[in-house]
């Protein structure tokens, strides 16, 4: 069987998803019979060949350099996969869309730094090129990465079921955090993480983005009924869910 050639690239992010890929490989060493890495810098693969069967990207685009790199990755890869919240949604740094970046850099570094610190607008990969598969999550779940790689090896189709974190949370019979006065985005967020945050008493921040049938206006109504202010709600949406803010009715 011919091995699949994989190139792994990291853009602006914490490399936690790269660590998850390493975690997967060390757990499933047999995968290396089917996959060959040309590039995976963290663990020493550095072959100067850009053409590959599958390119995997973690991290988001923050400047033109990143953007050009992504375009070239796309050209050279038959299949392009974006993993983690940064690559699929923009990541926590998406919150910089709500601050004046020029001003922030200028204030901090002085005017000269505007040419050296290259930071424009945070973008997920799909804003610049066509992406074949996306697995959101901060960090990416090992089991989903595993399933995707196995399906690529066997030419099957990979899909994430469209259900919410809230649904998974109810299956685990957790008490609802919204009732406890904790602003949880579980009702909006795509499941697949087995509701790991609310299950441990912490709010869902929406790191996997929204699921298809989410109802933002309904959610806001319910949250406001439970005593949360619209500012609080918007503030939380600004971490991972900027996209959904546009869907809010201005009533």
């Amino acid at each position, binding site marked *: 069987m011919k091995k699949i050639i994989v190139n792994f690239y990291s853009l602006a992010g914490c*490399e936690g998803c790269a660590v998850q890929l390493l*975690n997967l490989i*060390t757990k499933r060493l047999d995968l290396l019979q089917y996959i060959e890495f040309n590039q995976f810098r963290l*663990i020493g693969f550095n072959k100067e060949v850009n053409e590959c069967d599958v390119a995997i990207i973690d991290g988001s685009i923050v400047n033109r350099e990143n953007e050009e790199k992504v375009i070239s990755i796309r050209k050279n890869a038959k299949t392009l996969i974006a993993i983690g919240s940064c690559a699929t949604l923009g990541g*926590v740094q998406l919150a910089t869309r709500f601050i004046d970046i020029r001003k922030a850099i200028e204030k901090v570094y002085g005017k000269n730094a505007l040419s050296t610190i290259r930071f424009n607008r945070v973008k997920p990969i799909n804003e610049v090129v066509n992406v074949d598969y996306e697995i959101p999550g901060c960090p990416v779940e090992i089991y989903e990465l595993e399933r995707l790689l196995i399906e690529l090896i066997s030419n099957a189709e990979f899909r994430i079921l469209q259900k919410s974190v809230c649904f998974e949370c109810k299956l685990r019979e957790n008490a609802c955090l919204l009732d406890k006065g904790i602003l949880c985005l579980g009702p909006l967020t795509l499941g697949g993480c087995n509701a790991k945050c609310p299950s441990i008493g912490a709010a869902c921040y929406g790191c996997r983005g929204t699921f298809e049938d989410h109802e933002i206006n309904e959610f806001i109504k319910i949250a406001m009924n439970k005593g949360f202010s619209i500012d609080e709600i918007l503030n939380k949406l600004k971490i991972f869910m900027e996209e959904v803010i546009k869907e809010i009715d201005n009533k």
Partner: protein
Amino acid sequence: MIISSKELVRIEGHGKLIIEIENGKVKDVKFRVLEPPRLFEAFLIGRNIEEVPYISSKICGLCGYSHALCSVKALEKALKIEVPIEVKVLREIIEMMSVISSHIIHIFALSLPDFINVNNFSELLAKNGEIIKEAFSLKQEIDYLLRKVCGDSIHPINLIPGGFSSKITMEKLNELRGKIEKWIFKASSLANKVYPLLKVDEEFRRSGLYASLISKEYTFYIGDMISINNEKIEVSNFKSKVNEKFSSDSTSKKAFIHGKNFMVGALARLNLNNDKLSSRAKEMLRELKLKLPSLNPKLIPLAQLIEIIHCLEKILEYLNELKSVKYIREVDLTTIKEVKKKNYGVGMAIIEAPRGILYHEYEIRDWKIIRTDIITPTVQNIPDIESSVKTILSQYEINDLNKVKKHAETIVRCYDPCLSCSTHVVIVSQRHKVN
């Protein structure tokens, strides 16, 4: 002549080494960080206090636990919250587990290839497969336990000011104890197999500064005092000792103590705390015949190996101390928020991240962040990396450039630099100075 490496492999993040050679001698060494910025400090301003541990852990995928723990420690000071001793002990345990996990990646996947002359993970598996499998099965176990206690092995979920957002049951602590106990013997025999591979024959003498958090124990979390060589200073005076400089050729700053470079991390900790090692770790140190204090960066992986053994033994000891506690109760943040919502305060904390001293400082008002300052281990280590590469290379005849490059890269990797961390906090302190 200038030799410049390509983007370095087997380090966390994007970085480059530039070596300037004049008349066959090394004139200057620069370590350039190329990691794209993410401006954490800018979007942390205005955030609610309880969101900070969650967000700050996203600075790093290797030491996310350290950022979260350091931020809760600092925020508790700003809020003037006292936490129960069992919470502190459990956080110490958690930090040690995350140190083990990070050290395993560094020793076995990033640094070991240099010592046994292979390039990548596949070659490593082909040459020393059994050792690698054993090491990563320990990592899997530690990651499993971190997930059990904190929800995720990369970014902890339930760490909040005051304690944990979920109840930590005796059942969980017992599972922890059972698994760690099983691993102590296995890890010691693994270490015995690894240390001959990491042994450093050449003598390398270098004097200079080194710093770590100190306490009654070989500490990673508990404590508010640091030691620089043997001079002790309070955490609150850390910034009066350490100053940072920014250079435009890099996306990271560099930290100095009175203008001098200094070392932080496993070897610095070992230099200052070796009398407090656990019994097996002490035994290992004796067998290795390391002359301490040392500033030879090539000994860092060995120091990390000793720390893994030490941490496993200490975790078990601390878990036994926790036996009298039935469970660790969850914190009701809404009540704390109700009492403290109008507070103003400044809090600063240091913990030992896998790569060394991590400093977080927050100024808060009305339950919101109004100023942050974060100084990461790698920002502190970069000048020391440059200095030791320069010193070591100056002992060699420069005739084979490839050999020079390989040697220099090995040293950089020994330090285990974490460039995601070093970059994302670049601006934080700058902002502070401007204000």
